[in-house]
């Protein structure tokens, strides 16, 4: 059962091959069996079995939604009423959200069963899942390696078949990079496409939730549930939601693929370059043509991103004050001591680093030199993309500079860790949609191909990924010991 796609699971439930309770028990059993991966912060077995029982009643009555009875899991950044939402932090280790995130409500309305909450980098700040208060997540393809981050638990859970489909969030690559390192399919939608209400904020002008699944067909089903205007999110975009599955099989004949020459510079590892080029050659077989494009400002994406993301993080995380919810230190001497020690004791090193950077960038005398400058660079980067996407339909390139790295390898040097986001963060600055699609292996570890499209081109991206998955089998590979 655990190797079936969402479409196969829905068919199996409707034809009574198995019940939702049986399906849910099977996944709960796997989650338990592979606990050592540390993919989950919370397993909500009781809630899941209740939901499954309810789903079975609905299925018997023939009253079904798109995900009725299908188990999923949520990144622990989405608030779930009555179930702990930690955001990977000691600060929220005791936090039971008083309401559901819009994304969670949508899954509930669609009839999905919630298996639990997935491990992640603390407040989504990290590229390896090592900053989580709950410890590192192991990559199922090589358990000495990281699964990527910040949605590391999400990617590991899908790769290990602990859940058929899950959610992630992407501020600088946090869906695409772990999807690439774990060999699964991940989609970061256009900024504003998926509601951020109840999705704990890191950098509000960049954060975007999206699906993480085994293939593009499932990603389309999940995005259909997640997308849509939400009056509760002030940056939600009021644009109709198309049918994401309708065009999956459209022809790619005449598709113009832009290859940014900055993505394929001499710095790119030769085996990564060869794997990505081989994947792109498949698209030529499918009738696509290749065009070289240039985006000269791309090299400033990392500095601009770390200014903007840190500034917004320092502002967003000022709400954790030890007064209204979350961690409070013991025996505070006065109010300043209460704030300072509660925050000092409950935030981890990476979160502190970003709060400090952001506070500095926003402080008097430095605002223009850093924050304003970064927003101007952001405009130029966005114009680079606009220019390129006026010449071609989509852009392609790698998701990451290399495959999954060893746990502990980059923790001592934050700048090295930041540089590993080089291919993903510019897309968040521009607010564009992009996917990571399994595209091969290097020494047994998965590689992701990045497909970047214009605003609201998610149907086209899913179509491109789906056609690729019909002629390749990288997405069907299962890590050793998890089949």
């Amino acid at each position, binding site marked *: 059962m655990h190797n079936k796609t969402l479409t196969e699971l829905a068919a199996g439930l409707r034809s009574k091959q198995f019940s939702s309770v049986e399906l849910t028990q099977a996944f709960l059993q796997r989650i338990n069996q592979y606990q050592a991966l540390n993919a989950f912060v919370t397993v909500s077995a009781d809630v899941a079995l209740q939901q499954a029982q309810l789903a079975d009643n609905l299925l018997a009555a023939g009253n079904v939604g798109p995900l009725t009875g299908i188990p999923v899991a949520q990144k622990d950044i989405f608030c779930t009423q009555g179930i702990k939402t930690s955001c990977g932090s000691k600060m929220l280790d005791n936090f039971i959200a008083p309401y559901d995130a819009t994304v969670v409500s949508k899954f509930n309305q669609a009839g999905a069963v919630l298996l639990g909450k997935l491990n992640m980098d603390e407040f989504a700040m990290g590229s390896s899942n090592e900053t989580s208060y709950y410890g590192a997540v192991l990559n199922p393809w090589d358990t000495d390696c990281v699964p990527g981050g910040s949605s590391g638990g999400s990617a590991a859970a899908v790769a290990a078949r602990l859940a058929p489909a899950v959610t992630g969030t992407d501020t600088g690559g946090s869906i695409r990079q772990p999807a690439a390192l774990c060999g699964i399919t991940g989609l970061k939608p256009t900024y504003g496409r998926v509601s951020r209400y109840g999705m704990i904020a890191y950098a509000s002008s960049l954060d975007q939730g999206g699906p993480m699944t085994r293939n593009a067909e499932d990603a389309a089903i999940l995005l259909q549930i997640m997308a849509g205007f939400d009056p509760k999110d002030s940056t939600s975009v009021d644009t109709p939601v198309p049918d994401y599955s309708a065009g999956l099989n459209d022809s790619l004949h005449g598709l113009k693929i832009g290859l940014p020459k900055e993505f394929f510079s001499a710095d790119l590892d030769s085996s990564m370059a060869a794997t990505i080029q081989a994947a792109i050659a498949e698209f030529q077989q499918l009738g696509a043509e290749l065009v070289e494009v240039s985006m000269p400002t791309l090299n*400033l994406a990392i500095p601009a991103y770390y*200014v903007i993301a840190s500034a917004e993080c320092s502002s967003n995380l000022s709400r954790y004050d030890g007064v209204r919810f979350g961690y409070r230190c013991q025996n505070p001497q006065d*109010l300043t001591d209460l704030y300072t*020690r509660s925050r000092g004791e409950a935030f981890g090193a990476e979160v*502190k680093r970003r709060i*400090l*950077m952001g506070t*500095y960038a926003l402080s008097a005398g430095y605002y223009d030199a850093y924050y304003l400058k970064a927003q101007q*660079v952001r405009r130029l980067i966005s114009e680079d993309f606009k220019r390129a996407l006026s010449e071609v339909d989509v852009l392609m390139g790698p998701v990451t500079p290399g495959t999954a790295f060893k746990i502990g390898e980059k923790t001592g040097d934050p700048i090295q860790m930041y540089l590993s986001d080089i291919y993903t963060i510019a897309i968040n600055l521009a607010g564009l949609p992009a996917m990571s699609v399994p595209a091969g292996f290097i020494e047994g570890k998965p590689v992701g191909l990045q497909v970047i499209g214009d605003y609201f081109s998610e149907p086209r991206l899913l179509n491109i990924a789906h056609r690729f998955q019909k002629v390749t089998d990288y997405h069907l590979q299962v890590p050793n010991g998890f089949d």
Partner: protein
Amino acid sequence: MSLTVDDVKKIAHLARLGIAQQDFDNYTKDLSGVLDLMTQMGNLDTVNVKPMAHPLDQMQRLREDAVTETDQRLLFQSIAPQTEAGLYLVPKVID
């Protein structure tokens, strides 16, 4: 660009963020390194470039001035570290 330990202490105070004494050297080194990375932007001419705050240049939406939420004080205070009579408790501010 290099920061000093005193600079970092001042920033930590602005952020009301407790940092252990022995960690200041490391944070100072890390932040100086990140600032070097950020200074790369200084080389790019951005005169007359309009800062970009929202990817779709969307304006903040307004809504009707109507009541949409009910009072949920009890629920929200049920997860607070310390409350009394409907109030959040903090250490004494004024003697």
